[in-house]
């Protein structure tokens, strides 16, 4: 698709020198153990990380040790305390699955190694032109300090045997009126509940560009007003009269399976197919996306400034961008996470690998997923959940 001038230049002239540098990195990486600190709450992701580890060991002699976190902030805290203790080399964290506020915190405090992304040979498969999804993380410029590996996109799930979904967030009011009590959203204190409100905020905002700046009182007033009008109209027809909300999206999937609601939501386009395969949703479950597009973000990996195995970490980051690895990741039977690669940069063989992936009826086509809306600045989310609690919980 889009091949920018820079990537073209890199491809044309810089390759030989870069290839030599990369060989040095590979040599340095051989025999290293990479302590990859990654959220460990999802069995399929854990299995995928194991698989990547076997592969890097076979090919480059790099071992991956998955440090399972319950919250990414744990790894950030570890690096912070190592810096405070003066341990500027030989740190205990080599690679972190990171994005959003945690990335911002580490970048601002100078805790990251880099920029390194353009040194990775496989980064040529990623669209790194300015403003592309892989270059911005919750409005913060990535600037080569973290490397993308999987795509997250907000989608709704419905049971196609039961209902026709609403076209967009605005249409949800009429839909709920026609189907009272048949939709809800996770509690906004939960990430997914907040995302639902953010999705509506972006769609309904008179000027969505204000969301890319830190929130101010004036911007808050004008931007959030339509959201509250919309929500006040929607609220009476929510499940349980909006007296109760599911704790998180998993609970809402269960409500969908129990037939208590007709709509659920997830931050993964393959969620419906994956949940069906696991027996957690009826086989007629499908995803849909609001007409104007939906929120999306990219999961990255970053290397702390004091990492012990920097070369090994770079090899892992590069391997994650390998078309074969990305195709394996996108396999619904493995992880079902969408690839971050730009299909236009792939050769015929790599594209064939993607085309050969098993299909599932509940798996949406990429073009059905619509545009990707940028995450608002992190301050909006805080303000939004606070305001919701003040308005509706007393």
């Amino acid at each position, binding site marked *: 698709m889009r091949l920018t001038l820079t990537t073209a230049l890199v491809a044309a002239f810089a390759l030989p020198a870069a290839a030599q540098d990369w060989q040095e990195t590979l040599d340095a990486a051989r025999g290293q153990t990479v302590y990859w600190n990654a959220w460990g709450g999802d069995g399929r992701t854990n299995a995928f990380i194991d698989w990547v580890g076997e592969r890097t060991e076979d090919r480059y002699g790099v071992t991956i040790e998955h440090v399972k976190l319950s919250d990414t*902030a744990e790894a950030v805290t570890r690096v912070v305390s190592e810096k405070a203790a003066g341990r500027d080399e030989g740190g205990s964290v080599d690679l972190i699955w990171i994005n959003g506020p945690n990335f911002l915190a580490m970048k601002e405090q100078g805790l990251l190694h880099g920029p390194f992304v353009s040194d990775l040979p496989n980064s040529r498969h990623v669209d790194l032109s300015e403003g592309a999804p892989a270059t911005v993380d919750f409005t913060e410029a990535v600037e080569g300090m973290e490397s993308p590996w999987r795509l997250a996109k907000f989608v709704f799930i419905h049971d196609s045997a039961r209902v026709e979904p609403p076209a967009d967030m605005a249409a949800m009011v009429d839909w709920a009126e026609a189907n009272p009590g048949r939709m809800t959203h996770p509690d906004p204190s939960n990430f997914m509940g907040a995302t639902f409100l953010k999705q509506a905020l972006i769609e309904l905002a008179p000027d969505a560009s204000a969301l890319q700046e830190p929130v101010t009182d004036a911007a808050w007033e004008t931007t959030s007003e339509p959201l509250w009008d919309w929500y006040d109209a929607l609220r009476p027809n929510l499940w349980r009269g909006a007296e109760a909300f599911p704790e998180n999206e*998993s609970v809402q999937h269960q409500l969908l399976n129990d037939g*208590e609601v007709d709509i659920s939501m997830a931050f993964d386009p393959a969620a419906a197919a994956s*949940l069906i395969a696991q027996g957690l949703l009826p086989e007629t479950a499908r995803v849909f996306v609001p007409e104007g597009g939906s929120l999306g973000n990219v999961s990255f990996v970053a290397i702390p400034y004091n990492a012990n195995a920097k070369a090994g970490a770079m090899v892992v980051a590069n391997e994650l961008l390998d078309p074969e690895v990305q195709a394996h990741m996108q396999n619904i039977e493995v992880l079902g996470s969408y690839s971050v690669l730009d299909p236009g940069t792939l050769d015929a063989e790599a594209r064939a690998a993607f085309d050969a992936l098993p299909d599932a009826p509940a798996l949406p086509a990429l073009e059905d997923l619509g545009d990707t809306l940028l995450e608002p600045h992190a301050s909006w989310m805080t303000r939004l959940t606070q305001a919701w609690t003040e308005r509706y919980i007393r």
Partner: protein
Amino acid sequence: MTRARSAQQPLHPPRARTGAPRPAGGRALRAGVLAAVVLGLLLPIAAGLWETLRAAFGHFPAIGATGPSLSPFAALLATPGLGQAVALSLWTGFAATALSLLLALGLCAVAHARLSGSRGARLLAPFLAAPHAALAIGLAFTIAPSGWIARVLAPLLGWDRPPDVALVGDPWGLALIAGLAIKEMPFLVLMLLSALTQIPLREAMAAGRSLGYGRGLVWMKVIVPQVWPLIRLPVMVVLAYSLSVVDMALILGPSNPPTLAVMLTRMFSDPDIFALLPASAGALVQLTLVLGSFAALLAAERVAGAIGLWWIRAGGRGLTAEPILRGAAGAAAALLALGALAMASLVVWSVAFRWPWPAPLPESWSWRAWRTASGGWDSAVFNTLVLAGLTTAASLVLAIAWLEGEDRARRGRAGWAEALIYLPLLLPQIGFLYGLNVLFLRLGLRADLFAVAWAQALFVFPYVMITLSAPWRALDARLPRAAASLGAGPWRRLVAVKLPVLLAPMLTAAAVGVAVSVAQYLPTLFMGAGRVATLTTEAVTLASGSDRRIAAAYASLQAALPFAAYLAAFAIPALAFRHRRALLGGAA
């Protein structure tokens, strides 16, 4: 035979009994037991309360907060939904206690003639054994509008969609009240059955009936006033527990706002470390709530006593009260049936693959939940077993030492000693557990299995003690006396006579200990810093996930362990004493 004798025996045996002079060994034993209880149980609770108190008034140097200040209380008061949470806690706590008590009384009134203490224990064992969390998970599915009962009714009533009514997590907390009642009523029934052996029940009933009072009225006017003092403490335990329960309220209670205890648990685990201060202030509020509720209960006791006296003096007779008792007994039976259904639903869910609305049984079956769980449940089972073994063994040894000390001193239990045993059960766990955790950290003790075992023992010991005390006192005094006259010293009498004779009640006490240990949620969560995973913590965590099948597998295991312990407690004496019927206790 046991029952008949203990009927003449008051709860607190008279101080002086005839016999040999007080042996000197008894004093050392008693001092040792007292030291263990004070240092092991009382001191940690006091220290935990002190840490909580300091944090509540803004003094927590570890995070840079130095007090005293009232800002934690101000922050707590500013928490949205606090007032509602307090009101909800009070309502669910009192309603669950009152319901459990009334139904237990009704059940005993109708069925006590057919239920001896041990037979009752056997019938109620599944409910006593089932951990709160497991029962809650099963009940949530059974009574939900899209749950098991609704799925059976759906084709009959033509429901295409489940009704949009909150039956679980309802704003009134009715599901929570029902869940608590299913667990607490059997406990009170057992306490009642044991109390009934200590009053002249048959005589009172005969006298009442001959004066023209119906059975129900004799029960209400004569029996209840006599047993009340004997079950007051257990009722207070139920009240304290119901007011401050966390795991069950997380699963069955409303979420927005939740009960106070749940709200505080969330604040204690807030990533913002300064939330500890208002959370500690809230723990004091919870403590005040419980103590205030005790005062209210005692005040209600006086009022009820005065009204009751007037009612009794009015002298109304007849059979008017029969339907009320029958109704209560019926409701109690219905509640137990609901509990049984809930436990059954766990087993079915754990072997289901796909089970969408409105299918009354799974569309497809699979062992997957058990296999998937094997990555995690083996270590959770291991932790749970180790904790249950450690805490039960320690509590049993301490309880035997205590009771033997009482025997050797030839005196009954002083009121303060009884209160000491009950103390951990009367205080809300959240009031001192976090403080205790802070203390452990300050002393450099790590959050590990041992710390969790200690915290669990605070709650296991009282239950073991309560269970063992009555049968221990009911032991035929002639047996040790005969042994003494044959020259056996105190230790030999204990080991060769008392313990073998008391094998059945000791095993029952151990089973109770295992059940209490397995069910502990908050002590495991706080003292283990989330790192010691047991079946309970896993089941509660999984209950909020999307995979009911795996949660059900964990909950089934969680219920199976104490159940196996109860089975063993019944089976071992039956096997060991198959030729000695009298040693089987009341079962004979």
